[in-house]
């Protein structure tokens, strides 16, 4: 998958952080039942993440945000049609929020320590693995955390308006790891 250029990066011993914009849309469906879930799964060629705080990877990565609410890592245009077809007859709404978020990729053996400085979320591999996700309060802002298969990397999604704050927080937090 070709990645866009990083908008900002940080490197420290055991730690690498890169900030990017990511294509993103939020799909909301009112009271979806098993049928529309199945239809969405078929349309995207994956098992639609109906269970809370799960992630499915396929042509598009899909993350559960709330009952009847999912984040699609794609802008609205390419996914509009499959969504509309699958959700036919159901009240649903697809918002393109690509410009509204920033994706932070955190990698390295010290990733978990860094997350532990900013959030009370338990990220131990025993309880938080690839295929799961969690929304929480990170560095005092609402964030979505997605663990990577490797166990040593995480994707963190925050609102774009907090990007300046989050950068400042990362710079300060990484100081400890330079000792």
């Amino acid at each position, binding site marked *: 998958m070709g990645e866009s250029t990083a908008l900002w990066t940080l490197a420290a011993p055991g730690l690498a952080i890169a900030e990017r914009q990511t294509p993103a849309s939020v799909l909301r469906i009112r009271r979806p039942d098993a049928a529309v879930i199945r239809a969405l799964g078929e349309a995207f060629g994956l098992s639609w993440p109906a269970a809370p705080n799960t992630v499915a990877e396929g042509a598009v990565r899909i993350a559960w945000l709330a009952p009847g609410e999912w984040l699609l890592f794609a802008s609205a245009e390419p996914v509009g049609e499959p969504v509309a077809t699958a959700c036919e007859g159901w009240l649903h709404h697809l918002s393109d*929020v690509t410009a509204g978020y920033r994706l932070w990729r955190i990698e390295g053996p010290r990733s978990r320590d860094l997350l532990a400085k900013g959030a009370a979320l338990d990220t131990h591999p025993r309880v938080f693995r690839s295929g799961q996700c969690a929304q929480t309060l990170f560095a005092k802002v609402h964030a979505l955390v997605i663990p990577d298969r490797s166990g040593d990397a995480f994707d963190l999604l925050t609102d774009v308006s907090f990007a300046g704050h989050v950068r400042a927080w990362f710079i300060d937090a990484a100081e400890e790891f330079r000792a």
Partner: protein
Amino acid sequence: MSGRRLPGGGRIDRNRPLNFTFEGRPYRGYVGDTLASALLAAGVRVVGRSFKYHRPRGLLAAGVEEANALVQVGEGARAEVNLRATEVELHEGLTARAVNCWPSARFDVGAVNNLFGRLLPAGFYYKTFMWPDWRWFEPVIRRAAGLGRPSILPDPDRYETRHAHCDLLVVGSGPAGLAAALAASRRGERVMLVEQDPLPGGSLLWRPAQIDGRSGSDWAERAAAEIAAAPDALVLTRTTAIGYFDHNALALLERVAGAAGSPGPDHRPRQRLWSVRARRVVLAAGALERPLVFPGNDRPGVMLASAVSEYAARWAARAGDEAVVFTNNDSAYAAAHALLDTGGRVAAVVDSRPAPPARRTASLQARGVRTLLGASIVATHGRPALTGVTIRDAEGHDHRVAADVLAMSGGWNPTVHLFSQSGGALVWDGEQALFRPGRSAQAEVSVGAAAGEFGLSTAIEQGWRAGGGEGAPPLADAADERWTIGPLWRVPARGKAFVDFQNDVTADDIALSARENFVSVEHLKRYTTLGMAADQGKTSNVNALAIMAELTGRPIADVGTTRFRPPFTPATFGAIGGRARGELFQPLRRLPAHDRHVQAGAAFEEYGGWLRPAHYPGAGESAHAAEQREALAVRRAVGLFDGSPLGKIDVVGADAAEFLDRIYANTLSTLKVGRARYGLMLNEQGAVIDDGVTVRLAADHFLVGTTGGGADRIAAWLEEWLQCEWPDLDVLVAPVTTAWAVLTLSGPKARDVLDAAGVDMAIGEEDFPHMTFRECRVAGVPARISRVSFTGEVSFEVSVAADRACELWDRLRLAGAPFGLAPVGIEAWMLLRMEMGYLHLGADTDGATTPDDIGWGRVLKRRRDFVGRRSLTRPELLRKDRLQFVGVEAVDSTVPVPVGSHLRSPGLPSGSEGYVTSSGLSPTLGRGVALAMVRAGRSRYGEELLVITGEGRGRRVRVTVPGVRGPGGEPLDG
């Protein structure tokens, strides 16, 4: 150095000597020493002065319960005050001085207080220094009070924070704690072992023991190493568990950079505060020895018996050459033996019990030590430090004995602080004369001495089982001995017998408290200040409440203990604040075009959680001048304003219109597609909580607008109503505020600029009228434009995807240059709306302002229900004298009226008719313009009032319709 350092032994590194100063004098110690042990080994006997009476004091203990040796360590910005010398790790170049004495501990001017002791009993400040006026004495007392002088320089160190989760958290690395952590780590659990000392081992560091064939300290070292090596285990030393909170949340304070006052290497934090959530907790924090209460028990040289042993065994520091032991229980006998083993002399063992276990006394008598039974110490002698004691034997005869150290033991208190904080209930164990943990309130268990179990084997086994250990636990080689005590709460004899050493509270003060009927333990504490010092009563609480029980004839269990509160030992504010300071204290949102504002020279301020341009000062231009210029630019040409924080929420579905009609006070369902309408939202009390412009994109699709500061709040509000009250409405809510940037062109030339920038539709007044909405392209960028005006001039609110904001800004500035386009900040924007008389929520309204108060009573829906409707007919909201939104202009003056100033009718002596809510200098008219809330204001236009508070007091003002009027009385608008 005097000969108080034993020639061998101790866990000090004699190859690494350290130089330090105390009270300006140079001394030497070793790596492994604490400041206390080094001072003791150096023969320093007076380490400080007591809080109130300024009596000379020596070391009482060897650990956190130390009450006398309070020191200030370090200089300048790193100075730390009120540390216990027993917790200060010695390092090269350490400088320390005693607090609360001048010029030094040895010669202290404050000692004069001791002479006036009779005037300074408990509560003296309520009684003695009251006549003729307590205020005369207060400044003097204030200056004399307090301990130590903290630095007022900025703290140069870093304080970090960390969250952690574990299956088992073990507090204390003595034998019981180590056994628990060992068992759990061998089962592969996520374990955290927390130890406040730099070394693991607890009492095994100084008490002789054999476990699994090894010395206790050896076994401890290996166990700790095995635990630390386990993949999911963490051993934290120099870390104190300072608080136990709900649902097994605990706070740990780690002293990372080692010794207090020592400069840490760059980047290394000085302290780290851990917030831990544990599935299970094992409390193995041991027990603290109690002093005995007898006259003169605070003289330097009187120490806890276990401390005397610990100093000798752990730091090779002998407390004295000629010792007397005074005890009411068996444990002090071990201290006597230990003293003899180091080559010291024990002149006598004084046991208050008439018949202690024979084997105890026999073992000492066999070594030539005199034992007096049923006896007590009734006085101590020596200035400034101990030279002798007076023993009263069982027959009542007094004997004077020479001694330079008195090792006392009044029993033991399990360290139950964290247990109690966790909500657990304490029980009084009459047989062992102590409080120990009873019923737990959380998933926690206490083991070992912390649970009142003093036998080593049993303690280890308890810990092992608590850690989930299966099979045989580590085994202590010696069988547990039975331990007995005969409670002695105070020695009845004349003289000051101290209970709380740190706050100078004596047994007589407790008696005074009882006489004045402050008999509840909570009253006793506050009346005498007992237990309120930095040591939080670790050596005084139980003695005090037991004495009170005796005085009032109640069982100790009935008197009970006061509440245990965190922190267990004092914590710095730096650690609590962590890195959440300065820029990182509060997250602020930045505008999508932030960089462009910076380039344009914006002066930023925080508004509603966003960092926004207040104004754009030119070179040498003042803030005021910039505001005036920017506002004029909008009136005369065109301004460019960043309105991106405005809330934008998509509301879709067949019931979208119905939903909005229920939420808004006015009607939204009649809004036509492509049109915009101003809406008021109320809470259920009928107060206005948000306003904004909503547009209709389709029959089943609205884009709700909110104030900049209300975007998140209103999105949550809509969700709450849908989830909790109207779950059956066929509607979805999608907040998209930050995905869109909003740049507004406002002014007579606004249309020209938009045209010049390039828009793919007709924008003439007939094609694109006021309060309508279009989707189009501006300079090739997909956009939505609303024709709404906050300034009174023709305005186009252009919304584009947030990542196209800078691009749009550039195009608009380029297109606008020939027309005199100027960036406009918040302050000027506010001036413009003030001139129009438009209200601004939060400035002109407060939490009680209703639609009618602001003149919007008539637009409300009449026939159907909406949130807040019922409250509007509450009697309070129908009063005729409610504050109403009006304009205010100064009479005979162009100077603006101060915001917040109250207004009163001329001739009235008191009361307020209301107050000014917004005010500024109108650049258009060159005079002040203001808005206000005035009682029944709408029926008082033309009336004169007076300003009665703040600057401008006494100025005449007139109530007007909101909004500036031109010379002919016509409203000033575009």
